[in-house]
């Protein structure tokens, strides 16, 4: 079996947030999206650390955007999922669905 780069659970959440946000995916909306969907506090530093790992794996690319006054003149950095990243998300989803299937403890949404 060939070794391939895999997604950690937080990395997968960040990838899903990137896909949802589309062209507006930079640090602030990504962390807000994760907070809204998971109901947990998400630090911007953790998001960037995950994004850098994803970039190293070739699942994400980034480019500098416009600077705004409320950012102290600093440019936004927009992130985008690559074709390879999208393929990895699909494969992870497939694997998770297979693992999920047929577990009576997890049926019906009750612990």
């Amino acid at each position, binding site marked *: 079996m060939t070794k391939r780069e895999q997604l950690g659970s937080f990395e997968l959440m960040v990838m899903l947030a990137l896909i949802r946000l589309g062209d507006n995916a930079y640090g602030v909306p990504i962390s807000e999206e994760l907070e809204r969907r998971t109901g947990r506090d998400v*630090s911007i*530093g953790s998001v*960037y*650390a995950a994004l*850098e790992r994803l970039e190293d794996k070739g699942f994400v690319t980034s480019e500098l955007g416009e*600077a705004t006054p409320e*950012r*102290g003149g*600093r440019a936004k950095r927009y992130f985008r999922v690559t074709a390879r990243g999208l393929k990895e998300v699909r494969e992870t989803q497939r694997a998770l669905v297979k693992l999920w299937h047929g577990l009576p403890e997890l049926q019906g949404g009750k612990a």
Partner: protein
Amino acid sequence: MTPVQPPRLAAWLLRQFGSSPKNESIIGDLNERFRQGRSRMWYWRQVTIAIIESAFTDLRTRKLVGLRAVVLGLIVIHIVGNTMFNLFGRVLAATQYFRLIGVMLVPTGTPFPVWVYPFFAAVVFIVGMVSGWVVGRLHRRHRAAMVLLYALSMLLYLFGFAIVEGLETSALSGGGSFAFYLVNCTVVLMGILFGGTFHMSRRDATCAQNVSS
């Protein structure tokens, strides 16, 4: 009304000790959320997490480089420490407050006058600064993570030394004083962090920003 400014010191610390090549973008994001109503406490917490997370991300795939940085730092601090205390130790040993046993500077037990404290602290600071500078200089691409790792290992070393060897055997304790030891440990760590970022010139910062863009 003047808008509330984000904490500048926190942003500066992130720029100095954050290992991410995207530090400027992170600061921009933090500023944007701060101006949306987040507190200064929130900003400081975010900066602390960003520094720790980025150091871990940098060290995760460079464990051997990290080990090399720590070993190098410990060797340098011993060489520089011995040299400095040989030079300045003779000055201190000429007083009634210290005596030299071999290369060891040992307090005689006579209470120190006030001038000894800043003199001693300055020597300790320089020793820490030189070792931090060497570690930072020889690991320019991963400077922040390596300097932080070295400072952390030095903290553990000093803590372990105090437990295993006892305060009395360390010149940093001034004859067993815990407060003196604590102050000098803090000074040496400050020296390491200062020395590690000393050569972080504007050119380096620009290079880092260009690499990330």
